[in-house]
């Protein structure tokens, strides 16, 4: 059978789960859904296509997949990013496997990939900046070389960011044009005054602080991998502002809307290639 991974729930993180194989894995890919999304609704095409296309994209064979779940509508972005940090820590340390009946082989990952969609990308970038600020504060009175070495050693700051239609420069959720399904249309109507929707406006303090902080960090430490990302946007995307941080190259995919951009299909395998390092 062409099927190798079975899901395992990760207790303590709402509806989060992992797809791990019996084989050795070299890297962990953490997927973070967007506003009103869910781990399975947003990412399920990855589940089966990473198996089916394993001969075309063998990189996936040695990757474990983790799907983070959070309340994307009513809980502040900064709180969710701290939860994401705890989740990633459990993934990286392998702590989460302690509660499984059939434990997979012990892993020591070489790489971490953080893949997000829309609001999920904001959480990821906030997680990276929080980690940078924490390490910087801990090294405030130490020589710059020590700080640099601490930044380079940190697994989050060494991670690779894969951002699908990031909402990092704001959303245009008040426009009806982008809502092509009854679900997204209804969701938009229902969440018109939600807390997170306000946090995702282009002029929000949450987004502007994140942008300024990340751009400054990247200017100071250009060698730190996680400060830089090359997002992939669909054309047209009428939900988010199709813009990125200073100096970042943007990739485009014609004919994909905001929701389809992160969903690989038989006729659209680019997401499988985009996530791999």
């Amino acid at each position, binding site marked *: *059978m062409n*099927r190798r991974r*079975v899901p395992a729930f990760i207790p303590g993180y709402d509806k989060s789960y992992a797809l791990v194989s019996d084989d050795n894995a070299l890297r962990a890919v953490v997927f973070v859904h967007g506003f*009103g999304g869910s781990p399975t609704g947003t990412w399920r095409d990855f589940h089966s296509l990473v198996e089916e296309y394993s001969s075309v994209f063998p990189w996936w064979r040695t990757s474990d997949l983790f799907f983070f779940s959070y309340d994307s509508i009513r809980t502040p972005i900064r709180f969710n990013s701290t939860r994401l940090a705890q989740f990633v820590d459990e993934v990286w340390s392998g702590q989460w496997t302690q509660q499984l009946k*059939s434990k997979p082989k012990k892993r020591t990952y070489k790489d971490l990939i953080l893949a997000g969609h829309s609001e999920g990308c904001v959480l990821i970038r906030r997680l990276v900046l929080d980690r940078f600020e924490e390490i910087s504060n801990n090294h405030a009175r130490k020589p710059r070389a020590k700080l640099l070495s601490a930044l380079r050693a940190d697994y989050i700051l060494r991670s690779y960011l894969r951002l699908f239609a990031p909402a990092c420069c704001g959303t245009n959720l008040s426009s009806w044009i982008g809502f092509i399904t*009854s679900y997204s249309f209804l969701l938009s109507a*229902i969440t018109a005054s939600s807390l997170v929707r306000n946090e995702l406006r282009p002029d929000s303090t949450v987004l502007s602080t994140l942008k300024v902080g990340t751009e400054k960090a990247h200017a100071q430490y250009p060698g730190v991998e996680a400060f830089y990302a090359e997002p992939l946007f669909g054309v047209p995307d009428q939900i988010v502002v199709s813009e990125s941080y200073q100096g970042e190259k943007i990739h485009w995919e014609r004919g994909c809307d905001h929701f389809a951009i992160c969903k690989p299909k038989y006729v659209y395998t680019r997401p499988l290639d985009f996530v791999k390092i």
Partner: protein
Amino acid sequence: MNRVEREQIRNSEFFESAIVERSAGRGIWEGNLSAEFSRAEIVYWAMVGVQIEYLNRDYVRELFTQYSGPIVSACQILKERGQFPFPLPQDWPALPIELFEGGISIGNDASPDRPKETDPQPDLWNTFQHLMLLSSENLLDDETHDFVHSISWTEASQWNALREGSHLDQYSVPSSSYSVESIQLGFAQVTRHWKDESLLLEELLQRKPRRSRDSSKSRKLRRQARELHWATAGPFSNACMYISRHRYNLSNREIVERYFSYAGSLLQQTKDGSAGWLDLRREAFDDLRNLVSRGEASALTLDIPRLWAVFVQNEVPVQSDLAVQSLFESQAHRRIILADSEESEKDKDEEQEEHS
């Protein structure tokens, strides 16, 4: 233990942790029928999982001993209301389910036939696994349960009060349970769940069975696997829809109208009069119409002009408080036999079949 058996055990562990343990180990609002349905659904998911050989039969038997309390209790509550056992489509070979003190058992046999030389069907396994993941997202969702209980299983006057936030508790004081916000979010979760589930099952029906990587398999076996896919994918998909949609009570016209009325009223709040908004409203109507008419509701002939009127004008249809109540008593049970009423149920079924 061979490779397939090992996978079945791992699948069963996933089923336990994702579905059974989380649902059974959790307190639920007393009287919330949606939450009770979500527990009773577990029995049916286990049945289908065993039939397609995704789950290990012995493991499931053990699970139902271990977690029998809350699941049996939910099934009994629904049974008293005439909502258990669930109806299943005629083309799915349903197994007998027995409820007894301290346990549940699912009968043997009646699995979809497959040649013993072939692997279990990976497409069915994958679809079933995705369905379980989707169900696990919806299973513990308080907003979903608040919404589904309110819209599908209360009398009209209660539902109208709940959607407006003006319902009173047993002491005639405005009640703090079932907030308007949670009911609205529940509606969004439910439509998302329907959409994801429909896409998943449509993909199963549209896809060609995947070629086995085992090139040593004979052409005949490969052809058998292909034929088997076509023969089982349709009934499997239909059975899954019946199981997952029963809790929404959409075989009742009055409830269907409530869904359209509610969707229309939510969209009305955002009306800006633009051409784009008007077009989207129509598309949302079509989308909702497609999503609603699945499972048991597929037998219902929808009165589209009336639903459209309800949707755009947000007319509250003439409703009888008794209509929903009486539905609890009126649903026909088919194909699944409960131990304690085995003979009488059998007789009823046979009579119904003869009449039809």
